[in-house]
Structures are given as structure tokens and as C-alpha cells.
């Protein structure tokens, strides 16, 4: 846990563009919330590797969102079930069902569908939110926090020592 926080701090304080970090977390959300064996995760992996997406952020985000996925599975199932059994979309799903690639994607699984929908819906909002937060962190938070007494205490703590170790 301490290591994870240190890694997060390292990413936030690095020279990487906020956009790169944000998009890494957004793709990590897709990969982390949806089941790992889903075909679309290969596509996500290709994008993450091909484009300058912050890999550390992606890996860290994937770990965080995988943990969240376990807790949110019942929600994914209910949403996926509702979407897949919607009569207005039945024709679309039937068409997809008869396409081999999409069958391999396992789109007709309720957890896959539910988690995919949620991760896509949250993609852009999360991107903009993280962008905003990272910029705010870098602009205001770092300078202010270093001046506070708490910062002095934290600097003396194990978290900071781990952080320093990573920086080196």
C-alpha cells in the first residue's frame, strides 16, 4: 500500500503530461474493470503501448481498478443483464452474436457488457477530472504542502523514504 502511494506520488510529480497520466488511468479503468480475458483488452494494450501513455500510471491504475471491479461485479452484472435483455436492442445483439470476433469478445456475458459500458461512460469524465486534479496538484498543492508542518512530519516518515528511494 505504501509502495503504491509512493508510486502514485512519483507519477504525479514526474515530467509526464497530465494528459498522458489521465489517459493511462482511463485505459487502466477499462482493462481493470472488465474481465482480463476480454478481447478488447488486447486492443487497449496495443493503444497503451503504441501511444505515449504513461505505462506506470496504466499499471498502477489497472491494479487499483481490478480491486474495484471485484466489489462492483454485482452492479456490472445487473447493468449488463438489463442491457442485453432489452428488447429494443435484441436485433443488434443477435447480429453481434453471429459475428465470430464479437463472440470471442464474449460481449453476451453480463459482467463483460456491464463493466465495458461503465468504463466507456466514465472514460471522458475521468480523463477531464484527472487532468484537472493533476494540474491543481502540481500548481497549488505541492508548494503549499511543503510549507506545512505535516509535510515536515511526512518527510520524516517511511512513505517519503520510499518515495525518495523511487526517485533515486
Amino acid at each position: 500500500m505504501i509502495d503504491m502511494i509512493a508510486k502514485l506520488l512519483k507519477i504525479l510529480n514526474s515530467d509526464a503530461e497530465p494528459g498522458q497520466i489521465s489517459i493511462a488511468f482511463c485505459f487502466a479503468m477499462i482493462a481493470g474493470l472488465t474481465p482480463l480475458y476480454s478481447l478488447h483488452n488486447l486492443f487497449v494494450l496495443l493503444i497503451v503501448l503504441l501511444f505515449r501513455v504513461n505505462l506506470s500510471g496504466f499499471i498502477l491504475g489497472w491494479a487499483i481498478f481490478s480491486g474495484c471491479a471485484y466489489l462492483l461485479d454485482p452492479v456490472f452484472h445487473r447493468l449488463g443483464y438489463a442491457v442485453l435483455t432489452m428488447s429494443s436492442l435484441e436485433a443488434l445483439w443477435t447480429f453481434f452474436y453471429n459475428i465470430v470476433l464479437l463472440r470471442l469478445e464474449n460481449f453476451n456475458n453480463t459482467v463483460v457488457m456491464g463493466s465495458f459500458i461503465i468504463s466507456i461512460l466514465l472514460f471522458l469524465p475521468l480523463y477531464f477530472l484527472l487532468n484537472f486534479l493533476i494540474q491543481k496538484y502540481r500548481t497549488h498543492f505541492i508548494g503549499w504542502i511543503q510549507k506545512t508542518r505535516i509535510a515536515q512530519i511526512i518527510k520524516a516518515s517511511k512513505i517519503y523514504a520510499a518515495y525518495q528511494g523511487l526517485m533515486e
Partner: protein
Amino acid sequence: MKKWIRWQGIVAFLVIIVVLLGFFFLFADTLVKKGIEAAGTKAVGAKVELADVTISLSPAGGEIKGLQVTNPSKPMENAVEVASIRFLLDAPNLFQRKIVIKEMGADGVLFNTQRKHSGAVKTQEKQSKKTESQKALKKEKWLPTFDIKDIQSILQKEKLVTLEEVKKLEAEINQGQKTFEKKLHSLPNRKTFEQYKVRVEKLQSGSKGIQGIIGKARDIPKLKTDIEKDINKIKNAEKDLNKTMVNLKKRIKNVSQGPSKDFHRLKKKYGITSQGLGNMTGLIFGPEYSVWVTKGLYWYGKLRPILEQSLGNEGDEEAKEPERGKGMNIRFKEDIPVPDFLIKNANISLEIPAGEIAGEIKNITKDQHITGLPLTCELSGKKLEKFESIYINGTFNHVVPSRTEERIKGTIAGYRVQDMPLSDSEELSLALKKARVDINFQASIKGNHLDSNMTFNLSSVSLSSDKTKNPNQVSKAIGSALANVSSFSVSAKIIGPLNNYDVKLTSDLDKVINKAIYGLVRQLQADFQKRLNKEIVAKTNGPLKSLTSDLGGYNQIKKELNNRSNSGKNILRDLKKLM
């Protein structure tokens, strides 16, 4: 744009793909093995283990070696063990997540083999239900022993209605007698008539003058009236007494028929009848047959869910929460419907103690409604160790899930039996020393209703009965009769719902057995009845006689009434002479 693209990423991506594919190729066998073991264990409820799995890509297929499926109710025993299973897959369907096995061959199928270690699964509930023993007929005393129960103990235990009636009637007679005796006291008696006599004599000897005549004319009618009145009282009492006596005599006559009624009642209750001898076949063969039927149905119950499409609707699906992280697969209409799992054709060879039986099973799938074809199986074997031949043909039709039907029929020819115990109960020791058995069977299960018929034709039969172990006349008679039997047939019918079926066993052995003990039964019946009758008569004779003598009291009263009446009449006659 260049700033955003990391071309090395493609290389990294390709490396990852290659690593994944390499991992798959290296560990596919292990992954498939683990997958089959996990799925099989979950389905069976006990350990399913494989020795080795080999997967090939071209042609798509593989081989499974050393499959062991543990018997859930006997963890140290395998329900089935298969030496080798080879299969060819329909590769394109794999991309649609469908497992379609075009051809499968299974060799060395064994049943009930011993395991080296327990195959119990921790979460498995111990199914120690012994359905076999539950359904099997209990081996209690089932032969009528025809023990002649001690007559005295019967008569001590049972109340004779005759004696009860006699007691009752006796009490009534005594009560009635007392009533009449009391009445007698209130009636005119000898003293009264003596007084009348004196008055008559007085009148006779009275003055002969006019005054005397006038006096007589006045007294005589009055006296006559008094006497007639008293005579009438006595006559009425006599009438009542006669009526009562007639009634009592009638009742005594009825009661005297009581011993006969008591005899018939007790004869029916304690006597020996031939009703219990109707289905000796069921009693001899039933327990063992029931065990096999129950065993067969138990395994049918285990296999049926594996091959059965679960019937339900979408509402039910939603009601069931899936395992966390697994979700639920929603099915849609396919352009070319294919079941999720299908074995089109399986050639199997089974090794049973008698030898090898080989055959073919087709269309193994839970989704018969998609294929439109039922599961069929055909097995046969020839020149086996104990059989001449065996042939089994079966159909498992779940094409229409609401109208399911399973059928099986077959023959086993020339099965040689040796030293097979038929009955080892303490009442009858009977064994089939040797016989040749030809069996025809057919069974069908429609929905939940079972209808089955099996015929066993036995020839070259040698039945033996250990006379030292047969304790009573009946078992001895049966044993002797059966020793002469050289052939017989047994028919077994099972009809009814799967959880409450009736087993009916009939055989031409019943006639042989009934004939043997019929004479014995008749003789014992006659003896019992004779003795019972004698005892009842002895017990009731005395009390019945005393009833008749009890009427003597009434006769005395009648005589007295008669005397008084006559006295009155005599006096009246004398009086009339004076008029």
C-alpha cells in the same frame, strides 16, 4: 503526431502476444487438464482426475489418459475409470466458444474400481443416503409359519360372546323371577280363597227362610264378583308370566347358537388361510431385485441432470445470482444453431467382469432442442465369459424439454448362474445352484413416470434348499417342491413415478409352491378348527345348560298361579250351585 506515437510499442505488443501464445502452447495441456478436472469435479460432486492430457492443433483434438471419476457416495471408489479418450474437435466452432467433438473414442472403460486416495471434495455433503437399503424390501419374517397357536391361550385372550350373553340373560331371568315372586305375594293366595270357601260354606249352611234367601241373593253376586276379580288377577299374572317365559325361551335358543358364531369368528382371526401365499416370487426374489432397481435409478438420477437442459425462463435466470466475477451468458438466436457442447459420435468399449462390450453413443449434448436429435446408444458384446451375448439399445430424447422420454431395451442371452443365493432368511434357505438365464428387458421413462418390464427365463435350473436351515413345515415343503424344478420364468414389472414406483414380480414358481403347501394348509386348517370347536363347546356347554334350568323358578311360579286359579274356580263352581 510523432510525439504521441511510440513505435517501439508495436514491438512490445508483438512480444507480449508471442509470449502469451508461447505460454498457451506450452501450458495448453495443463490448462485443459485443470479445466476438465475443475468442471468435472463441480458437476459430479467428487474428484475427477486425469493422468495426462495431450492437445493437438492439427487436426484439432487431443487425448485424455487415465480419467477417474470418483463415486460421490463412495470416495475410495471410482464410479468410472477410462484408460484413454481420443477426440477430434470441430475447430471453427471453438471460436464461437462451442465445443463440438466430431469423433470420440474411449477405451478401457471400467466401473467401480478402487482408488489409492479419497476422492471426496471438502464442500461435498456426505451423501450417505442408502437408497438401496431404503427401497429394498426388509428381510423380515415373511413366510407364514402355520404355527398352531395354543387354543387355550386364544380362549384366554379372547372373550367368548356366548358367555357374555349367557351372563346377561341369567341376570335378566333372575331379575324377572324376583319380580314375579313379588307379584305373587300381592296376588290373592290360598288364605284368600280359604276365606272365600268359608263364606261360601256359610252361605250354604245359612237360614233357608225368606230372609235367608234375600240374604243369599244379596251376598252371592258380591262374592261371585270378588272371586272372579281375584281369578282374573291371577289369570293376568299367568298371562304375563307365559309371555315372559316364551320370550326367555326364544332368547335362550338364540344364545345357544352363540358357540357357533364364536367359533367362526375365532377361526377367521386365528385360522390359517392361503391368502399370504399369493406372491411367493416377490418374497423370494423381491429384495435383491429391488436393490438393483434402486441402484439403477440412483445412477439414472445422477446422469440425467448432466444431459438435461435446465428448464427455466428469463425471470428465473435473473433470480439466480451468478458466481462473482463470472456473470451470466445470455444466448441469442444463431444463424446456424450449434449446442455449446456436443459429442456427435462416441465409440466406447466397456470392460465388465464378464468381458468387453463395445458400442456407439451419438449426439451427447444438453441442447437436444438445438440439434433436434436425441441421444442414442447401442452396445453389444459376444462370447463373454458368463454371457453368450448382450445387446443394449437406448434413446434419451429431450428434444422437446417439456416432453422428455428415455427408452432402453435389450437382451442378455445365455447368462450362466452358479451358486446364487436367492433367500438367506432364517425361514427359508434357498439357492440357485446353476441355471442358464435369458433376459429381455425394456424400460421407458416419460417425464417422471417409469414403466419397465423384464423377463428372466431360466433353464437347466438346479435349486437347492438346505433342509437343516429350514425350520418349519412350510419352508420344508417349499424346499422339497422347488428341488424338482428344472425351468421357470420370472417377470418383473415396475410402474409408477420415479420416487414412488411399484415393483411387481410374478413367476410360474408360485404355482409350484402353492401346490406344494396347499395340502399342508388344508390339513392344518382342519386340525385347528376341530380343536377350537371342541374347546368352545366345552366352555359354553355348562353355562347354557344352567340357563335352561334357571327357568325352573318360573315354572314353580306358574304352578302356584295355576293352583290358585283352580282353587278360585272350584270355589266359584260351588258358589254357582247355590245360585
